[in-house]
């Protein structure tokens, strides 16, 4: 789960990282009022969970409240990488002498968090890492001992930060580690960390990603989730305890298990080629109770692109006949108007298939192998297009 800039900077402030921050506006009039209150030059920034905001015109400098209103009017409602901008942050302007990158993320290979710093900040750190890897300083953090103050001085030295800023820089880096640690973040990034004209360091922009696996112990953070920033169907799925990601294809997939769900997607793409592909990732979890199946089916069908639905259920713990009965019940409730391709494997799979075939539902096709099921789904989707 990712946080918006204004949410991230509010957390930064709570941990003592200097992050100049204005207020969030949802209308251009609000932006006018905030700019008036702040006085002077302001920056109007789209609050959207996507990179490349600046290039897309989502950040504008305004020299007066009127200009702020105008800028907000242009940014609000704008689409950045498929996401609509619902909020802008109106921030006080800052004089910028130098932009530095400072972030913490997890390194999967070493199993350790890593502090990353580049004196060449302000741009995508991945870009700098590719073009000038020697300018990207990485310092591994001992997961148990945490980030030591001496390490931060090491980083300041290696990154060629001017000495007069070491103390301030070290202080901010240690606080960023606390932000990362205490919020179970997977990313906590200040980009840019700015040296101002007044020779102060401030976090001008910030980004945080949280560990979804840890939200169970951060209910306050879980509440920060911006539902307007995701597809409504994804919200519904999460509330139903279903793992769902909307995609752009035509074949709805309902699968148990994440690995098998990805594989099912891959098979529809493999046999669908450029014309037909997966409409979603969906892992329904263990078993396949009728109400959960019905909820999943409704979510899949809420996507108007869906021309066929592929059920691929490996009856491990749950028996195939039970799954089949659950499917029939869900079918009755939802009454889908697109073809359903059903593949049952595992315990009592044969009995399950018999139950479904006996029911003789319109638009229901059974398959026994994954290949067969995927091919039939592709065929059905193409036929309906």
């Amino acid at each position: 789960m990712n946080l918006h800039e204004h949410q991230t900077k509010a957390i930064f402030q709570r941990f003592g990282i200097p992050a100049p921050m204005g207020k969030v506006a949802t209308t251009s009039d609000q932006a006018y009022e905030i700019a008036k209150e702040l006085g002077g030059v302001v920056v109007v920034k789209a609050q959207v969970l996507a990179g490349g905001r600046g290039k897309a015109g989502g950040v504008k400098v305004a020299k007066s409240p009127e200009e702020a209103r105008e800028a907000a009017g242009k940014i609000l409602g704008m689409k950045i990488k498929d996401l609509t901008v619902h909020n802008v942050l109106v921030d006080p302007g800052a004089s910028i002498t130098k932009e530095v990158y400072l972030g913490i993320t997890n390194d999967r290979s070493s199993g350790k968090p890593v502090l990353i710093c580049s004196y060449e900040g302000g741009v995508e750190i991945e870009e700098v890492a590719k073009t000038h890897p020697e300018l990207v300083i990485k310092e591994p953090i001992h997961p148990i001992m945490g980030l030591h103050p001496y390490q931060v001085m090491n980083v300041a030295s290696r990154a060629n930060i001017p000495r007069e800023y070491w103390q301030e820089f070290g202080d901010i880096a240690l606080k960023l580690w606390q932000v990362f640690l205490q919020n179970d973040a997977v990313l906590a990034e200040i980009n840019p960390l700015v040296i101002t004209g007044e020779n102060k360091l401030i976090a001008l922009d910030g980004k945080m990603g949280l560990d979804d696996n840890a939200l169970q112990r951060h209910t306050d953070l879980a509440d920060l989730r911006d539902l307007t920033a995701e597809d409504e169907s994804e919200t519904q799925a999460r509330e139903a305890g279903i793992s769902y990601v909307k995609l752009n294809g035509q074949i709805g997939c309902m699968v148990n298990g994440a690995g098998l769900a990805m594989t099912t997607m891959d098979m529809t793409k493999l046999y669908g080629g450029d014309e037909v592909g997966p409409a979603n990732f969906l892992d329904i979890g263990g078993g396949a109770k009728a109400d959960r199946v019905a909820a999943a089916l409704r979510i899949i069908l809420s996507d108007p692109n869906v021309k066929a639905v592929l059920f691929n259920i490996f009856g491990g713990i749950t028996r195939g006949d039970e799954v089949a009965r659950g499917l029939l019940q869900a079918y009755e409730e939802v009454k889908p108007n697109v073809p359903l391709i059903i593949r049952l494997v595992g315990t009592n799979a044969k009995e399950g298939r018999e139950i479904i075939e006996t029911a003789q539902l319109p638009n229901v096709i059974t398959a026994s192998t994954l290949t067969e099921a995927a091919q039939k789904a592709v065929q059905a989707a193409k036929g309906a297009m």
Partner: protein
Amino acid sequence: MTILADKHTKVIVQGITGREGRFQTRLMVDYGTQVVGGVRAGKGGEWVEGVPVFDTVSLAVEATGANCSIIYVPGVGATDAMYEAIDANVPLIVCITDPVPVMDMMKIKEYLKQKPEIRLIGPNCPGLLTPGQAKIGIIPGYVATPGNVGIVSKSGTLTYEVINALTEAGMGQSTCVGIGGDPVPGTNFIEVLEMFENDPQTEKVVLIGEIGGRAEIDAAEWIKRHMTKPVASFIAGRSAPPGTRMGHAGAIVEGGEGSAEDKMNALRAAGVRVADNPEEIPGLLK
């Protein structure tokens, strides 16, 4: 001989009194696994599915001589359960629980460096199955049959598919190991591949991977250098868009790293036969 577990492995179940723990205990017992005890603080002295419950892991180990623990403790309690098993020096620990915060796993992995004699598998994994001998986890026992194919996988149901396909093709399995799809797993591909390489019963190996991280690429490099037995592989997630997590905490292509294509290419370069479709796996092993 098999790797990690066999019919002599004595298993205790942490979280045995929970819904999942109780249910899975029955399935493990039914399969013939030697489940010698369960653990739940405050419920010591009770019995679940014919298995005695103890208040702590040390008491359970002391009373039963268990050398393996499987963890079904739900939520954040799983982390504490892992520490309890580690501190009680249980040599094989299998954690089924999902989700476990990644920071907890990084700490545990670091802590385990001081205890190289302990092997942790998981979390967020289906556990182990040594067909005909021991089921330590949730892999459905009936799909498997004893044989000479070793399986190591990040996925649950996808593994069942492959086991099923192998069994239907008349190819039995030595041991099936689900290492889980978390970014920082207790045990990685290479560690299991090394065990298979050294296991006389295992003659062929299947590696089932997915998008995210570079574990499959590291495995490919290891295979190229050290593996003498034939390996077939399937990588899930070729059609997944970058930057989006696909169910598993670790299944995400980030910063240009972790794509299925890169992994498949690395494996092919290491001489691994890579399937486009998991149903091709038995054919690739012939």
